[in-house]
């Protein structure tokens, strides 16, 4: 039993819904109790889809449990077939139906429908959303993709590829797909099937016609890609084209597989990121301490782009995708840090606090943590939020995606000259110790908007209307009060140093965005030397000691 306040991923049947909703001509019958239909609103409200997901729920109730839930399921399958006439169906159980063991697969098979009916076995008490999407897509591909006769000989036609991975409710999948299609098109490669997004079951049947596969989101499509590799011998490109270097590598790999010249796409300056990063105004980005957390695909890419394309320093790297823990650990090791693999957001919060990061690249969850800590943040990954479906084109992948990354990661930061002014005139009444960074809005406390009244689900960060009292915040480092006990960077410590009033005052002259780090470093310095009192001298000794 795990105590959970917020979750990074839904249950695995949500992953199956993401695949089903992405596709056309596929219907999902889900054996599930009343209430599980909440999942519809993920698609209709968060993603703003204009149709219900192609899902029929059995919505059984307590009174049905004593009777015949299996019959309810069979009726639901039959009724769904009659009404929607899908090309294929997937059937399965949500967490509760898994416990009553009605065997949806067997029941559906007994109906002998004239279409492929694919049973899904998604263990709700072990696995999560992305795994569920991966398993569903793999099962679909395994069942529906059939050996096909080779099309015209390779020499007489353009190269042909499949794009695997984009789903409904995916983080920028819509826009990534536009970029990748365009890249491949400019290389002279034709698209055979894009799946699951927009594909029909019949399209999955044609997967084998392609020369190779492009796997955009390994969490979702690696298993299917590996199956196609094994079964049809189709090579697979698994380099995730996020960032300039990864995109170049992706183009080169694809071009090599297609036997074509990548130069037309790579020549010139396909992305503005390299020049913007070399432009002198970007020098203030040098060594900015960045904490990265997200799904494995986006966290890995973000760590690489942040360190090698923007010149940041990675001080934290983690993921909630346990299936890809190995890759994340390897990448973390390159940055000399230990990876954080967890789905407990309290652990992530503690790690961010301990890292003394200056920028957080994370999910909506980390955005909230960062707000609480007064840190700038950019969102790089699901869990999905209505804001992750912007009206404008905003890809993460490809050369345009790299431009988007530069903008979205750099804009939350203070501009270089502003930072200097703050450093020089610390007692200016707008720069004083407790002044909030202007770009983070009026103070760190959010202004509570009327709950859900205007924008739909998951847009409100405030309290609902009529909320009786402000929510108690979890323990934060105490506000500076002289003299105060040093807390050893949040962790428990035996020897505590006391801040002398003048040192505390001096600390408050340090701009807010480095003050936390200065405090932690000074306290560590004092602790290591067993200094009972932190003076102004200690503060500057520590600065000299830790100075980079």
């Amino acid at each position: 039993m795990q105590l959970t306040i917020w979750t990074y991923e839904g249950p695995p049947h949500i992953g199956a819904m993401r695949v089903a909703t992405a596709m056309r001509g596929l219907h999902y019958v889900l054996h599930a109790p009343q209430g599980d239909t909440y999942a519809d609103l993920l698609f209709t409200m968060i993603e703003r889809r204009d149709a219900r997901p192609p899902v029929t729920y059995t919505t059984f109730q307590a009174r049905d449990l004593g009777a015949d839930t299996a019959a309810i399921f069979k009726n639901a399958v039959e009724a769904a077939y009659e009404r929607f006439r899908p090309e294929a169906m997937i059937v399965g159980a949500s967490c509760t139906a898994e416990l009553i063991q009605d065997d949806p697969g067997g029941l559906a098979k007994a109906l002998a429908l004239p279409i492929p009916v694919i049973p899904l076995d998604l263990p709700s008490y072990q696995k999560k959303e992305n795994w569920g999407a991966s398993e569903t897509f793999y099962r679909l591909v395994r069942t529906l993709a059939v050996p096909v006769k080779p099309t015209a000989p390779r020499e007489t036609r353009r190269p042909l590829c499949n794009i695997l991975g984009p789903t409904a409710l995916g983080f920028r999948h819509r826009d990534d797909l536009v970029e990748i299609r365009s890249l491949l098109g400019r290389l002279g490669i034709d698209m055979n099937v894009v799946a699951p997004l927009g594909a029909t079951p019949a399209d999955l049947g044609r997967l084998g016609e392609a020369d190779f596969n492009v796997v955009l989101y390994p969490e979702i499509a690696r298993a299917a890609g590996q199956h196609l590799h094994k079964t049809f011998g189709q090579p697979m490109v698994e380099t995730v084209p996020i960032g300039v270097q990864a995109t170049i590598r992706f183009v080169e790999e694809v071009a090599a597989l297609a036997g074509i010249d990548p130069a037309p796409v790579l020549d010139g300056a396909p992305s503005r990121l390299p020049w913007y990063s070399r432009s002198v105004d970007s020098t203030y980005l040098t060594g900015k301490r960045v904490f990265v957390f997200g799904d494995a695909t986006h966290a890995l890419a973000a760590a690489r782009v942040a360190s090698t394309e923007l010149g940041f320093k990675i001080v934290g790297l983690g993921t909630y995708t346990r299936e890809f823990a190995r890759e994340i650990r390897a990448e973390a090791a390159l940055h000399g840090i230990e990876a954080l693999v967890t789905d407990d957001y309290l652990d992530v919060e503690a790690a961010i606090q301990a890292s003394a990061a200056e920028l957080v690249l994370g999910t909506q969850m980390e955005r909230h943590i960062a707000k609480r800590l007064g840190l700038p943040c950019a969102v790089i990954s699901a869990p999905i939020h209505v804001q992750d479906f912007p009206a404008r084109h905003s890809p993460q992948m490809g050369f345009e995606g790299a431009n988007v990354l530069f903008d979205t990661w750099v804009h939350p930061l203070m501009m270089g000259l502003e930072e200097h002014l703050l450093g020089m005139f610390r007692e200016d009444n707008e720069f004083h110790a407790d002044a909030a960074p202007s770009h983070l809005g009026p103070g760190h406390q959010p202004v509570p908007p009327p709950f859900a009244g205007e924008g739909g689900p998951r847009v409100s960060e405030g309290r609902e209307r009529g909320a009786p009292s402000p929510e108690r915040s979890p323990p934060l480092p105490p506000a500076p009060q002289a003299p105060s006990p040093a807390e050893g960077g949040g962790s428990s410590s035996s020897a505590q140093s006391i801040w002398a009033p003048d040192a505390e005052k001096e600390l408050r002259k340090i701009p807010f965005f480095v003050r936390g780090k200065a405090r932690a470093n000074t306290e560590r310095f004092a602790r290591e030397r067993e200094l009972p009192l932190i003076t102004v001298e200690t503060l500057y000794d520590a600065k000299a000691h830790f100075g980079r």
Partner: protein
Amino acid sequence: MNAHAKLGNFDPACGVEIRQERGQRAVFCGLTGIVWLHRKIQDAFFLVVGSRTCAHLIQSAAGVMIFAEPRFATAIIDERDLAGIADMNDELDRVVGRLIERRPEIKLLFLVGSCPSEVIKLDLGRAAQRLSRELSPQVRVLSYSGSGIETTFTQGEDACLASLVPSMPAEAKDAAPSLLVVGALADVVEDQFARIFAELSIAPVRFLPARRAGEMPPVGPNTLALLAQPFLADTARALEERGATRLTAPFPLGAEGTTGWLKAAADAFDVAPARFAAATAAGSRRAEQALAPYRAMLARRRVFFFPDSQLEIPLARFLSRELGAELVEIGTPYLHRGHLADELALLPRGTTIVEGQDLDAQMDRCRAARPDLTVCGLGLANPLEAEGLATKWSIELLFTPIQGYDQAGDLAELFARPLVRRTRLEV
């Protein structure tokens, strides 16, 4: 769970057609009520004992990615628990221990049952007793079910409040009559009602739930219970078992409903008609003034309700009688004929009420009827909008102060807004 009064209780003379439907339902489960209840009782905490789906539901349906820590969480059952490798009661004790350690301000802890916990027959009642003994007097532990197999949406609040009733203090047998207003209301609405009751010289007036766990009101044979929400079947029954008498009344939505609701209390306390008129005159005048502009927008508009919160019937009555709207179909997940008798009597003759749901068939009827406004859940709203139907998503009606005279205009505005928006947009 819902008291299903026999059809015989219903007087067909009022000319309302009631049909029952079974099939796929698109409704929330009772866990959703936690979203507002955890704000209402300020030192209570709601621990759902369930699956990842439960945690995901509350997080997504509620949309409360709140800045600070919420006062609810989920103890997610995993395969170790199910396989019997871990003793589930030990696990629960461990989770509760960790929680109480982290949140020492919790005074009342609800263990909330879910579909999985019900199906595996995890006895949360017993767990609550055990934990209550261990944690007393610092923390009281209660349990109720918010599972989808047993509760629909607002029935979660009903189950929660019903779980509070047995431990409410006993009111002395010879106590003067007291009024107990039952059902979570926005604090602002509660305060308005308290002022009106004071003007009516009705005292003492108490509210269930109280804002703090230690201040739950007493109940006894001289308690007169006035339901502020139409979905409190179990709570009403539990109060009656403690000796309380339920007052029959319409629900305080719109000016007419509010007057009727207050009148039920006034009559029970023998308030003179002149005094009642004086105490309600200002409120009902303000409500009338606030409603007037919306009448032009909503009169003769055809409204279709999908089942959601059990508020549908009082809302339909308000739209029909105070704003002149026409009612195409009123879907409701359950119909408590006893509690809603006064409301049913106010509906226009020939109104169609559908209890329960068969989603696809109901959507077909809605499409065929092409109503001017469709009141429905979040999952259906955008798809119907895309088909050209104006919708009002209904969960907002639970999260917004809508009861009483001074909210009548706000309530009308919620229904008018989708229509007004359509006249504004030129894209």
